[in-house]
């Protein structure tokens, strides 16, 4: 285990240095939600029944979670890039911990996400979003957000190791954009047709978004709807547990065997 910790820390350092030299993807994935906050908040918000300020406060937790869901794309892109360029093979011929490489990637991603979320929160505060709950609940909200990011990153790492193609990662990045559209991240789900509403409410993004709105004190928990949305904190934890339990071992195994 100390081998894993040592090698994992070394790989964490590697990922952070990589991003320092090549911050393009990080900047893109973190400025995108800010652009969307301003665009949705002021352009779409003006056409919604909700008052503009209220909609922007509603939108901030949704965008936080939608950005966290981008872990699928980021994780896939980095894992595919490493595999494609032979760096992964290089590590796999070393007498080092098998799990350290993907774990280092996921850990570095968590550090970067934590840092990258700050600008979105600041812009959110500037356009009318507020932390209306207790400080402890706010900390819990951020913790839940990072846990969700950690879970989605493992989906991405597995997909990246399987596809080994940066191109496929780019294309899937476009596809993951629709995931938050099928949730309550940008719109309330009450108005959706029945089947679509069920689908949206079982989207993990909805559970985490509802939990954040609850913990930040932005909106009350809905009284009717699917279980993950009516019990958002428990629902979010359950979703994260399921995703991590399924995808983390698969990704580690895939990395260790390299499809051989």
């Amino acid at each position: 285990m100390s081998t894993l910790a040592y090698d994992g820390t070394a790989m964490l350092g590697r990922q952070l240095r990589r991003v320092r030299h090549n911050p393009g993807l990080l900047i893109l994935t973190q400025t995108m939600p800010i652009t969307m906050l301003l665009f949705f908040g002021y352009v779409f918000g003006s056409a919604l029944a909700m008052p503009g300020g209220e909609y922007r406060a509603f939108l901030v937790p949704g965008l936080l979670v939608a950005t966290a869901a981008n872990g699928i794309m980021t994780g896939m892109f980095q894992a595919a890039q490493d595999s494609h360029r032979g760096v992964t093979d290089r590590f796999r011929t070393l007498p080092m911990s098998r799990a350290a490489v993907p774990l280092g990637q996921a850990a570095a991603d968590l550090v970067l996400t934590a840092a990258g979320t700050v600008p979105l929160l600041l812009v959110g505060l500037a356009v009318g979003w507020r932390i209306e709950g207790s400080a402890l609940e706010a900390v819990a909200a951020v913790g839940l957000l990072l846990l969700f990011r950690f879970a989605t990153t493992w989906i991405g790492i597995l997909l990246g190791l399987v596809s080994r193609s940066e191109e496929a990662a780019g294309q899937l990045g476009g596809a993951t954009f629709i995931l938050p559209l099928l949730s309550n991240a940008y719109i309330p789900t009450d108005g959706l047709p029945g089947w679509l509403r069920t689908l949206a409410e079982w989207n993990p993004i909805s559970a985490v978004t509802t939990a954040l709105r609850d913990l930040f004190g932005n909106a009350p928990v809905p009284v009717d709807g699917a279980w993950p949305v009516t019990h958002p904190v428990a629902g979010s934890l359950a979703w994260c547990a399921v995703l991590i339990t399924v995808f983390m071992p698969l990704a580690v195994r895939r990395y260790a065997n390299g499809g051989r």
Partner: protein
Amino acid sequence: MRYGHPMTTTYAVLSEGLEKCFGDVHALQGLDLAVAEGTVCALLGPNGAGKTTAVRLLTTLLRPDAGSARVAGHDLVREPDAVRRAIAVTGQYASVDGDLTGRESLRLFAKLHRVPKPAVRADELLDRFELTGAADRPASTYSGGMRRRLDLAAGLITRPAVLFLDEPTTGLDPHSRNHIWTTVRDLRSEGTTVLLTTQYLEEADQLADDIVLVERGRAAHSGTPAELKALVGSYAEAVVARGDAMAGAAAVLDRLTGSAPVFDRERHAVGAVTTDPTLTLPRLVRELDAAGVPLLDASLRPPTLDDVFLRLTGGPRDDLGDDHDDGLKDDRPDNGTYSRTGSRTDNSKELAS
């Protein structure tokens, strides 16, 4: 395998019947290798012959479908971690992080190898591989040669027992190529076993103690460069003064070599392949002269590895020991380069001496 007494030879790489399929593609079809400790072995073969697959199997990146192998004394399948501790690999494509600087990469690898002072080791290697000046630039800004040197440096953090180099100089400029060749020779003299794959015959000729010609996933032939050349035979050639004297020269060559002469009517040259070690240049000249052939020039040129390669992997399948008379000429892409210019004979002289 040809060095030292068989009883005392230990093998750094020993494989038997290695097989690997990728779907329908039977990349390796029973590869046997025996690389003696402290030697340089070159896997030589055309693209798709299975060289890279062999390296990927022997470095634990792939698991064999059948067969077995020991690398540095450890079983490939049962003790992959022990194999990994004993080897270093430099891939066909530069496999260091382009986003990291050379210094950062080497420090990372030194850490992963548990070197006590990673920063010091990184600096030593940067110096040895002439990368100190570029040490703090991302590797993506390096030239191909610099990246390959960095890649090799990353493989030499600790001294490996066996070093695998997959096409180490493909696409490199002469300076970088020479640097890598020198490194390989140094490592060999320090006792490291090197297994390299290459498409460059000159590289195999320059570096390898043993060459294994890989064809269709098998070791088609193996031996020292000199042995492989002996297998193909030398090329005896007489250039005569007049076209009508060619028949006389051909008769002499036919008698001396036992193989059918090849005519180059434009140059008034007649040549034939010989595997007879008693046929020397003085004897060739004496015999031609005694037969009254008006000789302008005569040569007895040992084959280059190009000839060996074309002959043994490109020629007809079942023609190896004795029928040198047809394939050699057919397989030679440009007969002109074979002759008096001598440009292509440099390597073989070096090896023959």
